[in-house]
């Protein structure tokens, strides 16, 4: 079997196990043009699409990509009309659409794609795809609408990852440093951005998909960490992320609830980059892991629909392993064993204060209290996204209960465990050459089954050293008001995809 076929299989396998989102039965009425959709999902941490740290639900509306992860989780051409992969899996050729315009009216060419790929590879040091793009050897433009990417070695996740490498016009303000006003090709333009407050995106009338978008504008509420359910019920928001415990009241008010195709996974990391001597003793880490009641924790987060797992992929999917799950030493809490471990390590928890950093999420309080049951004193900092990233990057903390959202490819979950991965602080800034090697081997596997085996080997390596504790998975819920039509959640948070998204969404009266 050729690597080309395997790469396509990888793309499908990485997204296996998805479930179709629930959709309100459409009336069949013709879409109505106009109106401003008010939406609250995630934040926007930078105006530079190449430098974001993984918080991705906003920028897809103004910048687009060569490929797109469709609703069913498979990767499809998007700004590219089609693509070809060489037999050895090292050469990717993309044939671009010929009618794509940037927001400044200029037509997109293969030279623009080349400039973007080179910028991410050569100029961006801590971006989402910086590490992956280092594998790109040569980028050549073979015609105004054809671009050829040659890799140093085969890299199966590339097609999926390109769904998050946004194409920006090189004439955008700040291109040489940090892009401040991105000129993209999306159905909406980069309008007004107030960090952590609001992002307003007016429609792009010359969008390459004729007749789209239906809306006049999209108004993003970026305040985050709020209960959006009341705003949905009152009509102040049309589409919003909601906590699972709000679902009954939303449904009773005729607000439709959809779930993302992929799940968020919940974990608690230890500080691996600069651990205090207390946490360097694996028995102390084990004791803390044994204090976590995964069942109660996940039930608190996602109710009956939440899943308990010690792995970073959702149970019953391709890259998840039942045997590994059954060997989970920390599957159930055991405070007696935890206290015995602390005693054997000569640790009196009452004499120690553990520093915890988290988002302002309720589940972090649950984690804190579970660890506190061991007798430790806790100093808990609950911060907004940017504040948490800053605090984590200083590595002056011990524990970090967090979650990570759906990803376009399983590699993007492992990428952040690498020494040079994007936003490594959420996993304690692991610096482990052996783990890097195991992940690199998984990426370069000759078959899907071998890749699975190698990824699981890498995860076993993480578990053996207890860099982070896998706790479980829960699907993120999105509430959709009754007057919103054509909106469909995707596999990830992306709001503009090859087969759906905000471009196809419209509002009735």
């Amino acid at each position, binding site marked *: 079997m050729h690597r080309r076929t395997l790469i396509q299989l990888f793309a499908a396998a990485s997204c296996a196990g998805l479930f179709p989102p629930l959709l309100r039965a459409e009336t069949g009425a013709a879409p109505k043009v106009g109106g401003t959709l008010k939406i609250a999902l995630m934040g926007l941490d930078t105006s530079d699409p190449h430098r974001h740290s993984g918080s991705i639900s906003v920028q897809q509306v103004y910048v687009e990509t060569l490929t797109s992860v469709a609703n069913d989780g498979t990767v499809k051409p998007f700004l590219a009309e089609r693509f070809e992969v060489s037999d050895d899996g090292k050469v990717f050729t993309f044939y671009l659409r010929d009618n794509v315009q940037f927001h400044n009216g200029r037509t997109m060419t293969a030279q623009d794609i080349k400039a973007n790929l080179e910028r991410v590879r050569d100029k961006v040091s801590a971006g989402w795809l910086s590490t992956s793009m280092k594998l790109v050897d040569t980028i050549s433009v073979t015609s105004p609408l054809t671009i050829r990417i040659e890799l140093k070695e085969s890299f199966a996740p590339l097609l999926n990852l390109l769904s998050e490498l946004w194409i920006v016009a090189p004439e955008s303000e700040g291109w040489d440093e940090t892009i401040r006003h991105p000129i993209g090709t999306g159905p909406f333009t980069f309008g007004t951005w107030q960090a952590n407050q609001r992002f307003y995106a007016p429609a792009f009338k010359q969008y390459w998909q004729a007749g789209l978008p239906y809306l006049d504008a999209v108004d993003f509420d970026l305040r985050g*960490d709020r*209960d959006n359910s009341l705003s949905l019920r009152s009509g102040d928001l049309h589409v919003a992320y909601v906590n699972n*415990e709000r679902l009954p*009241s939303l449904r009773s008010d005729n607000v439709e609830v959809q779930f993302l195709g992929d799940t968020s996974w919940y974990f608690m990391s230890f500080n691996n980059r600069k651990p205090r001597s207390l946490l360097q003793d694996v028995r102390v880490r084990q004791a803390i892991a044994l204090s976590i009641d995964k069942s*109660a924790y996940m*039930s*608190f987060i996602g109710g009956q629909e939440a899943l308990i797992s010690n792995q970073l992929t959702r149970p019953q999917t391709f890259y998840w392993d039942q045997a590994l799950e059954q060997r989970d030493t920390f599957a159930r809490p055991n405070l007696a064993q935890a206290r015995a471990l602390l005693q054997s390590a000569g640790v009196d928890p009452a004499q120690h204060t553990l520093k915890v950093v988290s988002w*302002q999420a*309720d589940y*972090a*309080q*649950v984690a*804190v*209290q579970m660890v*506190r049951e061991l007798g430790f004193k*806790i*100093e*808990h*900092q*609950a*911060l907004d996204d940017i504040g948490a990233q800053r605090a984590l990057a200083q590595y002056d903390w011990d524990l970090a209960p967090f979650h990570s959202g759906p990803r376009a490819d399983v590699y993007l979950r492992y990428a952040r465990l690498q020494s040079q991965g994007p936003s490594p602080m959420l996993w304690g800034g692991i610096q482990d050459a052996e783990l890097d090697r195991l992940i690199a081997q998984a990426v370069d596997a000759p078959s899907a089954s071998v890749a699975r085996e190698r990824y699981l080997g890498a995860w076993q390596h993480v578990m053996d050293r207890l860099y982070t504790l896998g706790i479980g998975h829960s699907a993120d819920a999105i509430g959709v008001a009754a007057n919103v039509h054509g909106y469909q959640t995707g596999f990830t948070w992306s709001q503009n995809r090859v087969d759906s998204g905000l471009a196809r969404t419209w509002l009735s009266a």
Partner: protein
Amino acid sequence: MSRVIKQWPWLILGLAVVIALLAPLLPTQDPYYQSLLARNLAPSAQHWLGTDSFGRDVLARLVAGTRLTLLVAVAATCIAFVGGVGLGLLGCLAGGVTRTVIYTGFDMILTMPAILLSLALMVALGVGTGSVILAVGIAFMPLFAYVTRAIHERESAAGYVTAARVIGVSPLTIAWRHVLPNAIGTLLTQIAIVMPRAITTESVLSFFGMGVAPDVPTWGRIIATAAGFAEQAPLSLLFPVLALALTTLSLSLVGTRLRDTLDPLGKQLAAGA
């Protein structure tokens, strides 16, 4: 009976202080203990005021919150008192540039609402109980400094101070022996005015997630947690709001009465009325 009713602010305050002092000894449950299977429960024999969204006993958190909230308010008021009176007096005694610098600083602090200034200070200091106390304390320093300056100027013009100065008593001694004792009544009144504002400021900071750690039971945090579940468990919200409202109202009324009794200007106003 009517006399007792008239004293209700003192009774409420007394109750709050007693609860705050005896909180560790009261037979309430652990205010941090979570029972995740018993979330948002209505009042019952086991949980007199019900449970919150983490399954924590509301009564236990309210009791612990009384202690913590009053502790933060008292500590912040102490900082405001010591800083305001100390720096205010220093400015008055030193005069010249020192006085200008100190009081210009207080003028600048006063141009911002206390909550806004405290929020800004919290950003600089970082979250935590110590930071809250310091931020709220700094925000209210000018209120003591201006009172100190007014009293200092009034007393400095008095004949006995002039006499003391003539016989060679140092300005510091005059301030310590003559000015401050005369200021006690007014400053006590000021404490009673500042403290409810400190409680409210701390509660607002905590409500916005900028105060103490999220699971620490101050009234502001308890209200913030309960506000998200007002539909499912309205009583979890009602009790801490009542505690906050009654205590701040009582303190304000007590402050007014203290002013009428202890402050010379207040006495005149009361007599005039």
